[in-house]
Protein backbone atom coordinates (compact mmCIF):
# COMPACT_ATOMS: atom_id res chain seq x y z
CA UNK A 1 0.00 0.00 0.00
CA UNK A 2 2.67 2.37 1.03
CA UNK A 3 4.49 2.11 -2.24
CA UNK A 4 1.71 2.97 -4.59
CA UNK A 5 1.84 6.12 -6.63
CA UNK A 6 -0.25 7.24 -9.60
CA UNK A 7 0.95 5.90 -12.84
CA UNK A 8 2.50 2.81 -11.30
CA UNK A 9 1.40 -0.26 -13.12
CA UNK A 10 1.55 -2.26 -16.28
CA UNK A 11 3.09 -0.81 -19.40
CA UNK A 12 -0.18 -0.65 -21.20
CA UNK A 13 -1.84 1.22 -18.39
CA UNK A 14 -4.72 -1.11 -18.97
CA UNK A 15 -5.72 -1.38 -15.37
CA UNK A 16 -6.12 2.37 -15.01
CA UNK A 17 -8.84 2.37 -17.61
CA UNK A 18 -10.84 -0.64 -16.57
CA UNK A 19 -13.88 -0.20 -14.42
CA UNK A 20 -14.17 -2.28 -11.30
CA UNK A 21 -15.40 -5.70 -12.28
CA UNK A 22 -14.51 -9.14 -13.54
CA UNK A 23 -11.91 -8.00 -16.10
CA UNK A 24 -10.09 -5.80 -13.63
CA UNK A 25 -10.05 -8.59 -11.08
CA UNK A 26 -8.55 -10.98 -13.62
CA UNK A 27 -5.88 -8.45 -14.56
CA UNK A 28 -5.10 -7.98 -10.87
CA UNK A 29 -4.76 -11.70 -10.36
CA UNK A 30 -2.47 -12.10 -13.35
CA UNK A 31 -0.31 -9.12 -12.50
CA UNK A 32 -0.05 -10.20 -8.87
CA UNK A 33 0.93 -13.72 -9.85
CA UNK A 34 3.65 -12.52 -12.19
CA UNK A 35 5.07 -10.00 -9.80
CA UNK A 36 5.23 -12.16 -6.74
CA UNK A 37 6.87 -15.11 -8.40
CA UNK A 38 9.90 -13.29 -9.66
CA UNK A 39 10.54 -10.67 -7.07
CA UNK A 40 14.17 -9.58 -7.34
CA UNK A 41 15.75 -8.30 -4.17
CA UNK A 42 18.28 -5.46 -4.10
CA UNK A 43 21.43 -6.02 -2.07
CA UNK A 44 21.02 -3.83 0.96
CA UNK A 45 22.71 -5.89 3.57
CA UNK A 46 24.21 -3.73 6.25
CA UNK A 47 25.15 -5.71 9.35
CA UNK A 48 24.44 -9.03 11.08
CA UNK A 49 21.06 -9.49 9.40
CA UNK A 50 22.82 -9.37 6.06
CA UNK A 51 24.67 -12.55 6.96
CA UNK A 52 21.40 -14.30 7.75
CA UNK A 53 20.00 -12.95 4.48
CA UNK A 54 23.00 -14.44 2.65
CA UNK A 55 22.39 -17.70 4.50
CA UNK A 56 18.78 -17.56 3.33
CA UNK A 57 20.02 -17.26 -0.22
CA UNK A 58 22.61 -20.00 0.16
CA UNK A 59 22.23 -23.76 -0.08
CA UNK A 60 20.25 -24.81 2.95
CA UNK A 61 17.52 -22.18 3.07
CA UNK A 62 17.23 -21.62 -0.61
CA UNK A 63 15.55 -18.45 -1.80
CA UNK A 64 15.94 -19.54 -5.39
CA UNK A 65 12.85 -21.72 -5.08
CA UNK A 66 10.84 -18.51 -4.78
CA UNK A 67 12.52 -16.99 -7.80
CA UNK A 68 14.66 -14.69 -5.66
CA UNK A 69 18.22 -15.92 -5.89
CA UNK A 70 19.36 -13.05 -8.07
CA UNK A 71 20.21 -10.28 -5.67
CA UNK A 72 20.47 -7.40 -8.09
CA UNK A 73 23.29 -5.05 -7.32
CA UNK A 74 21.71 -2.26 -9.27
CA UNK A 75 18.55 -0.90 -7.67
CA UNK A 76 17.22 -0.10 -11.12
CA UNK A 77 16.63 -3.79 -11.68
CA UNK A 78 15.29 -4.67 -8.27
CA UNK A 79 11.77 -4.89 -6.90
CA UNK A 80 12.34 -5.59 -3.27
CA UNK A 81 14.67 -3.86 -0.86
CA UNK A 82 15.37 -5.97 2.20
CA UNK A 83 16.90 -3.52 4.66
CA UNK A 84 18.96 -5.97 6.64
CA UNK A 85 20.76 -4.40 9.53
CA UNK A 86 21.13 -1.23 11.51
CA UNK A 87 20.85 2.01 9.55
CA UNK A 88 23.11 4.69 10.90
CA UNK A 89 22.50 8.39 10.45
CA UNK A 90 25.30 8.50 7.91
CA UNK A 91 23.74 5.70 5.87
CA UNK A 92 20.17 7.03 5.88
CA UNK A 93 20.51 9.37 2.87
CA UNK A 94 22.14 6.54 0.92
CA UNK A 95 19.23 4.28 1.82
CA UNK A 96 16.75 6.86 0.58
CA UNK A 97 18.67 7.36 -2.65
CA UNK A 98 18.74 3.63 -3.37
CA UNK A 99 15.02 3.44 -2.64
CA UNK A 100 14.34 6.33 -5.00
CA UNK A 101 16.40 4.68 -7.71
CA UNK A 102 14.26 1.57 -7.64
CA UNK A 103 11.51 1.48 -10.22
CA UNK A 104 7.93 1.10 -9.10
CA UNK A 105 6.37 -1.32 -8.18
CA UNK A 106 8.71 -1.73 -5.25
CA UNK A 107 8.42 -3.11 -1.75
CA UNK A 108 10.50 -2.85 1.41
CA UNK A 109 11.04 -5.43 4.12
CA UNK A 110 12.57 -4.09 7.31
CA UNK A 111 14.54 -7.13 8.42
CA UNK A 112 15.56 -7.34 12.00
CA UNK A 113 14.88 -5.33 15.11
CA UNK A 114 17.29 -2.55 14.16
CA UNK A 115 15.63 -1.89 10.83
CA UNK A 116 12.13 -2.12 12.27
CA UNK A 117 12.59 0.12 15.26
CA UNK A 118 16.22 0.84 16.03
CA UNK A 119 16.49 -2.40 17.99
CA UNK A 120 18.73 -2.41 21.03
CA UNK A 121 20.57 0.68 19.81
CA UNK A 122 18.44 3.52 21.11
CA UNK A 123 21.12 6.19 20.67
CA UNK A 124 22.52 9.08 18.66
CA UNK A 125 23.89 7.01 15.84
CA UNK A 126 21.06 4.78 14.65
CA UNK A 127 17.86 5.70 12.85
CA UNK A 128 15.07 4.37 15.06
CA UNK A 129 13.35 2.34 12.40
CA UNK A 130 13.82 2.68 8.66
CA UNK A 131 10.22 3.75 8.33
CA UNK A 132 11.58 7.17 9.21
CA UNK A 133 13.27 7.08 5.81
CA UNK A 134 11.38 4.73 3.48
CA UNK A 135 7.84 3.30 3.57
CA UNK A 136 7.95 -0.26 4.86
CA UNK A 137 5.66 -3.11 3.86
CA UNK A 138 6.75 -5.89 6.19
CA UNK A 139 8.47 -5.56 9.57
CA UNK A 140 10.43 -8.63 10.53
CA UNK A 141 11.62 -8.73 14.15
CA UNK A 142 14.54 -10.79 15.36
CA UNK A 143 18.13 -10.22 16.25
CA UNK A 144 18.95 -11.57 13.73
CA UNK A 145 15.85 -13.32 12.39
CA UNK A 146 16.51 -16.86 11.28
CA UNK A 147 16.54 -17.47 7.53
CA UNK A 148 13.25 -19.31 7.95
CA UNK A 149 11.72 -16.19 9.51
CA UNK A 150 12.95 -14.16 6.56
CA UNK A 151 11.36 -16.64 4.18
CA UNK A 152 8.11 -16.42 6.12
CA UNK A 153 8.18 -12.64 5.79
CA UNK A 154 8.88 -12.92 2.08
CA UNK A 155 6.04 -15.38 1.59
CA UNK A 156 3.66 -13.08 3.44
CA UNK A 157 4.81 -10.31 1.15
CA UNK A 158 4.17 -12.57 -1.83
CA UNK A 159 0.59 -13.08 -0.66
CA UNK A 160 0.24 -9.36 -0.18
CA UNK A 161 1.55 -8.68 -3.69
CA UNK A 162 -0.59 -11.40 -5.19
CA UNK A 163 -3.70 -9.85 -3.68
CA UNK A 164 -2.84 -6.28 -4.54
CA UNK A 165 -5.60 -4.30 -6.14
CA UNK A 166 -5.11 -2.13 -9.20
CA UNK A 167 -6.80 0.82 -10.83
CA UNK A 168 -10.03 2.08 -9.28
CA UNK A 169 -10.00 -0.76 -6.74
CA UNK A 170 -6.64 0.43 -5.49
CA UNK A 171 -7.80 3.97 -5.02
CA UNK A 172 -10.71 2.72 -2.98
CA UNK A 173 -8.39 0.67 -0.78
CA UNK A 174 -6.02 3.60 -0.29
CA UNK A 175 -8.84 5.77 0.93
CA UNK A 176 -10.08 3.10 3.30
CA UNK A 177 -6.60 2.54 4.75
CA UNK A 178 -6.10 6.26 5.25
CA UNK A 179 -9.42 6.61 7.05
CA UNK A 180 -8.59 3.71 9.34
CA UNK A 181 -5.17 5.15 10.15
CA UNK A 182 -6.62 8.56 10.98
CA UNK A 183 -9.19 7.03 13.28
CA UNK A 184 -6.76 4.69 15.07
CA UNK A 185 -5.80 5.07 18.72
CA UNK A 186 -2.12 5.99 19.30
CA UNK A 187 -0.09 3.13 20.74
CA UNK A 188 0.73 4.70 24.08
CA UNK A 189 -2.98 5.35 24.70
CA UNK A 190 -3.96 1.76 24.07
CA UNK A 191 -5.08 -0.17 27.13
CA UNK A 192 -2.32 -2.14 28.78
CA UNK A 193 -2.64 -5.87 28.11
CA UNK A 194 -4.98 -7.49 30.59
CA UNK A 195 -5.78 -4.31 32.51
CA UNK A 196 -9.28 -3.19 33.22
CA UNK A 197 -8.70 0.28 31.78
Amino acid at each position, binding site marked *: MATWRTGMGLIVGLEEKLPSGFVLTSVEKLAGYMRKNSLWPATFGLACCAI*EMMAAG*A*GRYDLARFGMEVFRASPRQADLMIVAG*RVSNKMAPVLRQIYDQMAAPKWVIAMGACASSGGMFNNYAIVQGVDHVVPVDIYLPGCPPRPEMLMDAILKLHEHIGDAKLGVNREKVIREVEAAALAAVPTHSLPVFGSSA
Partner: protein
Amino acid sequence: MSHDPYASTRETTEGTVYSVTGGDWDSLVTEIGATKEERVVVNMGPQHPSTHGVLRLILELEGETVTETRCGIGYLHTGIEKNCEYRTWTQGVTFVTRMDYLAPLFNEAAYCLGVEKLLGITNDITERASVIRVLMMELNRISSHMVALGTGALELGALSPMIFAFRERELVLDIFEMVSGLRMNMAYIRPGGVAQDLPEGATAKIRATVKELRVNFKDNAKLLIGNTIWLKRTKDIGILDLAGCTTLGVTGPVLRATGMPWDLRKTQPYCGYENYDFDVITADTSDVYGRFLIRMNELEQSLRIIEQACDKLDVLEGQPVMVADKKIAWPSQLALGGDGLGNSLNHIREIMGTSMESLIHHFKLVTEGFRVPAGQVYSAVESPRGELGVHLISDGGTRPYRVHFREPSFNNLQSTAAMCEGSQIADIVGAVASIDPVMGGVDR
Protein backbone atom coordinates in the same frame (compact mmCIF):
# COMPACT_ATOMS: atom_id res chain seq x y z
CA MET B 1 24.15 14.08 -20.54
CA SER B 2 20.70 12.58 -20.10
CA HIS B 3 17.83 14.36 -18.44
CA ASP B 4 17.53 11.65 -15.80
CA PRO B 5 17.34 13.29 -12.35
CA TYR B 6 19.55 10.52 -10.97
CA ALA B 7 22.17 10.53 -13.71
CA SER B 8 23.21 14.08 -14.36
CA THR B 9 26.14 16.37 -13.99
CA ARG B 10 26.69 19.11 -11.53
CA GLU B 11 29.44 21.66 -11.18
CA THR B 12 31.32 21.86 -7.91
CA THR B 13 34.44 23.63 -6.71
CA GLU B 14 36.43 20.50 -7.44
CA GLY B 15 35.15 20.21 -11.00
CA THR B 16 32.26 18.42 -12.63
CA VAL B 17 30.60 15.54 -10.81
CA TYR B 18 28.90 12.94 -12.96
CA SER B 19 26.29 10.52 -11.66
CA VAL B 20 26.14 7.32 -13.65
CA THR B 21 23.41 4.79 -13.09
CA GLY B 22 23.99 2.17 -15.73
CA GLY B 23 23.55 2.09 -19.48
CA ASP B 24 24.96 5.57 -19.92
CA TRP B 25 28.65 4.76 -19.74
CA ASP B 26 29.19 5.71 -23.38
CA SER B 27 27.76 9.18 -23.00
CA LEU B 28 29.85 9.68 -19.87
CA VAL B 29 33.03 8.65 -21.63
CA THR B 30 32.37 10.95 -24.58
CA GLU B 31 31.69 13.85 -22.27
CA ILE B 32 34.80 13.28 -20.18
CA GLY B 33 36.84 12.73 -23.31
CA ALA B 34 35.78 16.17 -24.47
CA THR B 35 37.19 17.81 -21.32
CA LYS B 36 40.66 16.28 -21.80
CA GLU B 37 40.71 15.27 -18.11
CA GLU B 38 43.06 12.37 -17.51
CA ARG B 39 42.02 11.63 -13.96
CA VAL B 40 38.56 10.64 -12.82
CA VAL B 41 37.40 10.22 -9.22
CA VAL B 42 35.05 7.27 -8.90
CA ASN B 43 32.91 6.49 -5.91
CA MET B 44 32.45 2.80 -5.14
CA GLY B 45 29.83 2.14 -2.52
CA PRO B 46 28.61 2.30 0.23
CA GLN B 47 25.98 0.15 -1.43
CA HIS B 48 27.95 -2.11 -3.68
CA PRO B 49 28.04 -5.87 -4.08
CA SER B 50 31.79 -6.11 -3.99
CA THR B 51 32.86 -3.86 -1.18
CA HIS B 52 32.35 -6.38 1.60
CA GLY B 53 29.78 -4.38 3.51
CA VAL B 54 28.98 -0.70 3.76
CA LEU B 55 32.39 0.52 2.73
CA ARG B 56 32.80 3.50 0.49
CA LEU B 57 35.90 3.49 -1.69
CA ILE B 58 36.84 6.74 -3.33
CA LEU B 59 39.16 5.99 -6.20
CA GLU B 60 41.10 8.36 -8.37
CA LEU B 61 41.55 6.64 -11.68
CA GLU B 62 43.82 7.17 -14.61
CA GLY B 63 42.32 4.86 -17.20
CA GLU B 64 41.96 1.56 -15.41
CA THR B 65 44.81 2.21 -12.99
CA VAL B 66 44.07 3.47 -9.54
CA THR B 67 46.28 6.36 -8.50
CA GLU B 68 44.70 7.10 -5.14
CA THR B 69 42.38 5.15 -2.87
CA ARG B 70 40.59 6.44 0.15
CA CYS B 71 38.13 4.59 2.32
CA GLY B 72 35.01 6.24 3.59
CA ILE B 73 33.77 4.43 6.67
CA GLY B 74 31.31 5.19 9.42
CA TYR B 75 28.21 4.01 7.59
CA LEU B 76 27.58 1.42 10.27
CA HIS B 77 28.59 3.43 13.33
CA THR B 78 26.30 2.26 16.09
CA GLY B 79 27.63 3.96 19.18
CA ILE B 80 28.10 0.60 20.90
CA GLU B 81 30.97 1.89 23.01
CA LYS B 82 28.89 4.71 24.42
CA ASN B 83 25.89 2.45 24.90
CA CYS B 84 27.96 0.11 27.08
CA GLU B 85 28.45 2.94 29.58
CA TYR B 86 24.73 2.78 30.36
CA ARG B 87 24.51 -0.97 30.87
CA THR B 88 25.90 -3.28 33.49
CA TRP B 89 29.07 -5.22 32.80
CA THR B 90 27.16 -8.40 31.93
CA GLN B 91 24.68 -6.60 29.71
CA GLY B 92 27.65 -5.17 27.85
CA VAL B 93 28.26 -8.64 26.42
CA THR B 94 25.10 -8.45 24.32
CA PHE B 95 26.18 -5.12 22.86
CA VAL B 96 29.74 -6.05 22.29
CA THR B 97 28.86 -9.26 20.52
CA ARG B 98 27.32 -7.32 17.65
CA MET B 99 30.41 -5.39 16.68
CA ASP B 100 32.28 -7.90 14.60
CA TYR B 101 29.18 -9.88 13.75
CA LEU B 102 30.99 -12.68 11.96
CA ALA B 103 33.05 -13.51 15.04
CA PRO B 104 30.71 -12.64 17.90
CA LEU B 105 32.30 -15.03 20.37
CA PHE B 106 35.67 -13.33 19.97
CA ASN B 107 34.20 -9.96 20.88
CA GLU B 108 32.59 -11.53 23.92
CA ALA B 109 35.74 -13.38 24.90
CA ALA B 110 37.95 -10.29 24.68
CA TYR B 111 35.47 -8.25 26.70
CA CYS B 112 34.99 -10.95 29.34
CA LEU B 113 38.72 -11.55 29.67
CA GLY B 114 39.09 -7.81 30.24
CA VAL B 115 36.35 -7.71 32.86
CA GLU B 116 37.81 -10.74 34.60
CA LYS B 117 41.22 -9.11 34.61
CA LEU B 118 39.73 -6.05 36.25
CA LEU B 119 37.93 -8.20 38.77
CA GLY B 120 41.08 -10.20 39.41
CA ILE B 121 39.38 -13.56 38.89
CA THR B 122 41.31 -14.70 35.82
CA ASN B 123 42.75 -17.65 37.73
CA ASP B 124 39.38 -18.58 39.21
CA ILE B 125 37.73 -19.31 35.90
CA THR B 126 37.02 -23.02 35.87
CA GLU B 127 38.93 -25.13 33.41
CA ARG B 128 35.74 -26.39 31.85
CA ALA B 129 34.64 -22.83 31.13
CA SER B 130 37.98 -22.03 29.51
CA VAL B 131 37.86 -25.15 27.37
CA ILE B 132 34.31 -24.37 26.26
CA ARG B 133 35.44 -20.85 25.38
CA VAL B 134 38.30 -22.21 23.28
CA LEU B 135 35.98 -24.68 21.58
CA MET B 136 33.40 -22.04 20.70
CA MET B 137 36.04 -19.58 19.56
CA GLU B 138 37.64 -22.06 17.23
CA LEU B 139 34.25 -23.01 15.80
CA ASN B 140 33.62 -19.31 15.28
CA ARG B 141 36.96 -19.00 13.54
CA ILE B 142 35.85 -21.66 11.07
CA SER B 143 32.49 -20.00 10.41
CA SER B 144 34.14 -16.59 10.02
CA HIS B 145 36.76 -17.88 7.60
CA MET B 146 33.98 -19.54 5.63
CA VAL B 147 32.23 -16.24 5.13
CA ALA B 148 35.54 -14.59 4.28
CA LEU B 149 36.31 -17.21 1.65
CA GLY B 150 32.79 -17.36 0.32
CA THR B 151 32.25 -13.64 -0.04
CA GLY B 152 35.81 -13.06 -1.21
CA ALA B 153 35.34 -15.60 -3.95
CA LEU B 154 31.92 -14.17 -4.81
CA GLU B 155 33.35 -10.70 -5.19
CA LEU B 156 36.03 -12.03 -7.53
CA GLY B 157 33.39 -13.78 -9.59
CA ALA B 158 33.51 -17.35 -8.31
CA LEU B 159 29.98 -18.28 -7.31
CA SER B 160 30.26 -21.93 -6.22
CA PRO B 161 32.71 -21.42 -3.34
CA MET B 162 30.12 -19.22 -1.71
CA ILE B 163 27.56 -22.01 -1.69
CA PHE B 164 30.12 -24.52 -0.41
CA ALA B 165 31.33 -22.13 2.27
CA PHE B 166 27.85 -21.37 3.52
CA ARG B 167 27.08 -25.07 3.60
CA GLU B 168 30.03 -25.58 5.97
CA ARG B 169 28.99 -22.56 7.95
CA GLU B 170 25.51 -23.99 8.47
CA LEU B 171 27.06 -27.09 10.06
CA VAL B 172 28.92 -24.89 12.53
CA LEU B 173 25.85 -22.76 13.19
CA ASP B 174 23.93 -25.92 14.05
CA ILE B 175 26.43 -26.54 16.85
CA PHE B 176 26.14 -22.96 18.04
CA GLU B 177 22.39 -23.31 18.15
CA MET B 178 22.61 -26.55 20.09
CA VAL B 179 24.99 -25.11 22.67
CA SER B 180 23.83 -21.54 23.14
CA GLY B 181 20.41 -21.33 21.57
CA LEU B 182 21.29 -18.86 18.83
CA ARG B 183 23.07 -19.03 15.48
CA MET B 184 24.65 -15.60 15.67
CA ASN B 185 25.24 -12.93 18.32
CA MET B 186 24.78 -15.45 21.08
CA ALA B 187 25.97 -13.57 24.21
CA TYR B 188 27.23 -16.93 25.40
CA ILE B 189 30.57 -16.04 26.97
CA ARG B 190 29.91 -13.96 30.07
CA PRO B 191 32.18 -12.48 32.74
CA GLY B 192 32.98 -15.40 35.02
CA GLY B 193 32.52 -18.22 32.56
CA VAL B 194 29.92 -19.15 30.00
CA ALA B 195 26.15 -18.81 30.15
CA GLN B 196 25.32 -22.50 30.33
CA ASP B 197 26.98 -25.86 30.05
CA LEU B 198 27.03 -27.98 26.91
CA PRO B 199 23.94 -30.15 26.51
CA GLU B 200 24.02 -33.97 26.48
CA GLY B 201 25.64 -35.44 23.43
CA ALA B 202 27.27 -32.18 22.42
CA THR B 203 30.81 -33.53 22.13
CA ALA B 204 29.60 -36.46 20.05
CA LYS B 205 27.80 -34.13 17.65
CA ILE B 206 30.81 -31.83 17.47
CA ARG B 207 33.13 -34.72 16.65
CA ALA B 208 30.76 -35.89 13.92
CA THR B 209 30.64 -32.37 12.50
CA VAL B 210 34.43 -32.13 12.53
CA LYS B 211 34.63 -35.30 10.46
CA GLU B 212 32.07 -33.93 8.01
CA LEU B 213 33.86 -30.58 7.78
CA ARG B 214 37.19 -32.22 7.01
CA VAL B 215 35.62 -33.90 4.03
CA ASN B 216 33.71 -30.78 2.94
CA PHE B 217 36.70 -28.45 3.08
CA LYS B 218 38.24 -30.42 0.25
CA ASP B 219 35.55 -29.13 -2.13
CA ASN B 220 36.63 -25.54 -1.88
CA ALA B 221 40.29 -26.49 -1.80
CA LYS B 222 40.02 -28.51 -4.99
CA LEU B 223 38.12 -25.73 -6.68
CA LEU B 224 40.40 -22.81 -5.87
CA ILE B 225 43.91 -23.87 -4.90
CA GLY B 226 46.03 -23.97 -8.03
CA ASN B 227 43.14 -22.78 -10.19
CA THR B 228 44.61 -20.68 -13.00
CA ILE B 229 41.92 -18.03 -12.97
CA TRP B 230 42.03 -17.78 -9.21
CA LEU B 231 45.80 -17.44 -9.30
CA LYS B 232 45.61 -14.76 -11.93
CA ARG B 233 43.22 -12.77 -9.78
CA THR B 234 45.08 -13.24 -6.51
CA LYS B 235 48.77 -13.88 -7.06
CA ASP B 236 50.98 -10.81 -6.53
CA ILE B 237 47.92 -8.67 -5.87
CA GLY B 238 47.58 -6.45 -2.84
CA ILE B 239 51.17 -6.74 -1.65
CA LEU B 240 51.88 -5.43 1.84
CA ASP B 241 55.29 -6.32 3.24
CA LEU B 242 56.34 -6.65 6.87
CA ALA B 243 57.46 -3.04 7.28
CA GLY B 244 54.12 -1.82 5.99
CA CYS B 245 52.24 -4.17 8.27
CA THR B 246 54.08 -3.18 11.43
CA THR B 247 53.83 0.53 10.92
CA LEU B 248 50.18 0.33 10.00
CA GLY B 249 49.39 -1.82 13.00
CA VAL B 250 48.13 -4.67 10.84
CA THR B 251 47.74 -8.07 12.50
CA GLY B 252 46.16 -11.38 11.63
CA PRO B 253 46.37 -13.27 8.34
CA VAL B 254 47.63 -10.14 6.54
CA LEU B 255 50.63 -9.98 8.88
CA ARG B 256 51.19 -13.72 8.78
CA ALA B 257 51.19 -13.62 4.97
CA THR B 258 54.45 -11.67 5.18
CA GLY B 259 56.07 -14.59 6.95
CA MET B 260 55.86 -13.25 10.51
CA PRO B 261 54.49 -16.01 12.76
CA TRP B 262 52.74 -13.64 15.15
CA ASP B 263 49.66 -15.27 16.66
CA LEU B 264 48.44 -14.20 20.08
CA ARG B 265 47.30 -17.71 20.83
CA LYS B 266 50.95 -18.75 20.84
CA THR B 267 52.79 -15.60 21.92
CA GLN B 268 50.47 -14.30 24.66
CA PRO B 269 48.15 -17.20 25.34
CA TYR B 270 44.82 -16.80 27.07
CA CYS B 271 42.05 -19.22 28.05
CA GLY B 272 44.55 -22.06 28.29
CA TYR B 273 45.68 -21.99 24.66
CA GLU B 274 49.18 -23.02 25.75
CA ASN B 275 47.82 -26.49 26.43
CA TYR B 276 46.69 -27.13 22.87
CA ASP B 277 48.79 -28.50 20.05
CA PHE B 278 48.42 -26.50 16.84
CA ASP B 279 50.59 -24.70 14.29
CA VAL B 280 50.72 -21.08 13.31
CA ILE B 281 50.19 -20.85 9.58
CA THR B 282 52.26 -18.36 7.63
CA ALA B 283 52.91 -17.63 3.99
CA ASP B 284 55.78 -15.69 2.52
CA THR B 285 54.23 -14.07 -0.50
CA SER B 286 52.46 -11.11 1.19
CA ASP B 287 49.76 -11.20 -1.43
CA VAL B 288 46.08 -12.06 -1.65
CA TYR B 289 46.81 -15.67 -2.57
CA GLY B 290 49.00 -16.09 0.51
CA ARG B 291 46.25 -14.77 2.79
CA PHE B 292 43.76 -17.07 1.13
CA LEU B 293 46.02 -20.07 1.74
CA ILE B 294 46.51 -19.03 5.36
CA ARG B 295 42.77 -18.93 5.93
CA MET B 296 42.28 -22.32 4.28
CA ASN B 297 45.01 -23.90 6.40
CA GLU B 298 43.88 -22.26 9.63
CA LEU B 299 40.64 -24.19 9.20
CA GLU B 300 42.48 -27.47 9.67
CA GLN B 301 44.32 -26.12 12.72
CA SER B 302 41.02 -25.04 14.23
CA LEU B 303 39.63 -28.52 13.69
CA ARG B 304 42.62 -29.95 15.57
CA ILE B 305 42.02 -27.62 18.49
CA ILE B 306 38.32 -28.49 18.53
CA GLU B 307 39.08 -32.20 18.72
CA GLN B 308 41.49 -31.64 21.59
CA ALA B 309 38.92 -29.47 23.35
CA CYS B 310 36.28 -32.20 23.00
CA ASP B 311 38.66 -34.71 24.56
CA LYS B 312 39.30 -32.36 27.46
CA LEU B 313 35.59 -31.72 27.93
CA ASP B 314 34.84 -35.41 28.22
CA VAL B 315 37.36 -35.60 31.06
CA LEU B 316 36.03 -32.48 32.80
CA GLU B 317 32.42 -33.66 32.75
CA GLY B 318 30.44 -32.23 35.65
CA GLN B 319 32.64 -29.26 36.48
CA PRO B 320 30.86 -25.94 36.89
CA VAL B 321 31.11 -23.42 34.08
CA MET B 322 30.91 -20.27 36.16
CA VAL B 323 33.16 -18.90 38.90
CA ALA B 324 32.41 -20.03 42.40
CA ASP B 325 32.02 -16.50 43.72
CA LYS B 326 28.26 -16.08 43.86
CA LYS B 327 28.53 -12.33 43.89
CA ILE B 328 29.86 -12.32 40.34
CA ALA B 329 28.62 -15.52 38.71
CA TRP B 330 25.65 -15.07 36.44
CA PRO B 331 22.91 -16.62 38.57
CA SER B 332 20.34 -18.21 36.33
CA GLN B 333 20.60 -21.75 35.10
CA LEU B 334 19.06 -21.79 31.66
CA ALA B 335 16.98 -24.62 30.30
CA LEU B 336 14.96 -25.22 27.17
CA GLY B 337 11.28 -25.02 27.94
CA GLY B 338 8.09 -25.02 25.93
CA ASP B 339 8.44 -21.35 25.11
CA GLY B 340 12.15 -21.24 24.46
CA LEU B 341 15.33 -20.87 26.46
CA GLY B 342 14.80 -19.47 29.90
CA ASN B 343 15.36 -19.97 33.61
CA SER B 344 15.17 -23.62 34.52
CA LEU B 345 12.39 -24.67 36.86
CA ASN B 346 14.91 -26.06 39.32
CA HIS B 347 16.51 -22.68 39.61
CA ILE B 348 13.19 -20.95 40.10
CA ARG B 349 12.28 -23.49 42.77
CA GLU B 350 15.56 -22.82 44.52
CA ILE B 351 15.42 -19.07 44.55
CA MET B 352 11.75 -18.81 45.36
CA GLY B 353 11.42 -21.69 47.77
CA THR B 354 14.71 -22.73 49.30
CA SER B 355 17.43 -20.14 49.41
CA MET B 356 16.86 -16.48 50.22
CA GLU B 357 20.48 -15.78 49.49
CA SER B 358 20.19 -17.14 45.97
CA LEU B 359 17.18 -14.96 45.40
CA ILE B 360 19.03 -11.90 46.58
CA HIS B 361 22.07 -12.73 44.45
CA HIS B 362 19.88 -13.30 41.42
CA PHE B 363 18.05 -10.04 41.95
CA LYS B 364 21.11 -7.91 42.63
CA LEU B 365 23.18 -9.38 39.82
CA VAL B 366 20.46 -9.01 37.23
CA THR B 367 19.26 -5.55 38.15
CA GLU B 368 22.31 -3.85 39.58
CA GLY B 369 25.19 -5.99 38.37
CA PHE B 370 28.45 -6.67 40.13
CA ARG B 371 30.91 -3.94 41.06
CA VAL B 372 34.29 -3.94 39.37
CA PRO B 373 37.21 -2.29 41.20
CA ALA B 374 38.54 0.87 39.56
CA GLY B 375 41.36 0.73 37.06
CA GLN B 376 41.98 0.17 33.41
CA VAL B 377 42.94 -2.91 31.50
CA TYR B 378 43.71 -3.97 27.93
CA SER B 379 43.05 -7.53 26.95
CA ALA B 380 43.52 -8.98 23.50
CA VAL B 381 42.52 -12.13 21.67
CA GLU B 382 43.44 -13.42 18.24
CA SER B 383 40.27 -13.05 16.21
CA PRO B 384 40.07 -14.38 12.65
CA ARG B 385 41.00 -10.92 11.43
CA GLY B 386 43.84 -10.08 13.77
CA GLU B 387 44.33 -8.75 17.26
CA LEU B 388 41.03 -7.84 18.84
CA GLY B 389 41.79 -5.77 21.89
CA VAL B 390 39.50 -4.19 24.42
CA HIS B 391 40.43 -1.27 26.64
CA LEU B 392 38.19 -1.10 29.69
CA ILE B 393 38.16 1.66 32.27
CA SER B 394 36.24 1.10 35.46
CA ASP B 395 35.50 3.71 38.08
CA GLY B 396 34.45 1.15 40.67
CA GLY B 397 30.80 0.98 39.71
CA THR B 398 28.37 -1.43 38.16
CA ARG B 399 28.73 0.11 34.73
CA PRO B 400 31.87 0.57 32.65
CA TYR B 401 33.33 4.05 32.57
CA ARG B 402 34.75 3.56 29.12
CA VAL B 403 34.79 0.64 26.73
CA HIS B 404 36.98 0.92 23.68
CA PHE B 405 37.56 -1.83 21.19
CA ARG B 406 40.69 -2.05 19.15
CA GLU B 407 39.16 -3.79 16.17
CA PRO B 408 41.50 -5.51 13.75
CA SER B 409 39.32 -4.63 10.77
CA PHE B 410 39.61 -0.91 11.56
CA ASN B 411 43.39 -0.94 11.53
CA ASN B 412 43.70 -3.44 8.72
CA LEU B 413 41.42 -1.45 6.44
CA GLN B 414 43.78 1.51 6.62
CA SER B 415 46.21 -0.50 4.56
CA THR B 416 43.90 -0.49 1.53
CA ALA B 417 45.64 2.56 0.14
CA ALA B 418 49.06 0.98 0.57
CA MET B 419 47.91 -2.20 -1.10
CA CYS B 420 45.92 -0.81 -3.98
CA GLU B 421 47.46 2.36 -5.28
CA GLY B 422 49.05 1.68 -8.62
CA SER B 423 47.00 -1.39 -9.38
CA GLN B 424 43.81 -1.89 -11.36
CA ILE B 425 40.27 -1.45 -10.10
CA ALA B 426 39.63 -5.18 -10.21
CA ASP B 427 42.57 -5.75 -7.88
CA ILE B 428 41.07 -3.50 -5.23
CA VAL B 429 38.19 -5.89 -4.85
CA GLY B 430 40.57 -8.76 -4.27
CA ALA B 431 42.74 -6.79 -1.86
CA VAL B 432 39.80 -5.64 0.26
CA ALA B 433 38.41 -9.17 0.28
CA SER B 434 41.76 -10.48 1.50
CA ILE B 435 41.83 -7.99 4.39
CA ASP B 436 38.36 -9.35 5.24
CA PRO B 437 37.03 -6.28 7.01
CA VAL B 438 33.77 -6.57 8.88
CA MET B 439 32.19 -3.14 8.79
CA GLY B 440 30.42 -3.66 12.08
CA GLY B 441 33.83 -3.92 13.67
CA VAL B 442 35.30 -1.05 11.70
CA ASP B 443 32.57 1.37 12.62
CA ARG B 444 31.37 -0.05 15.95
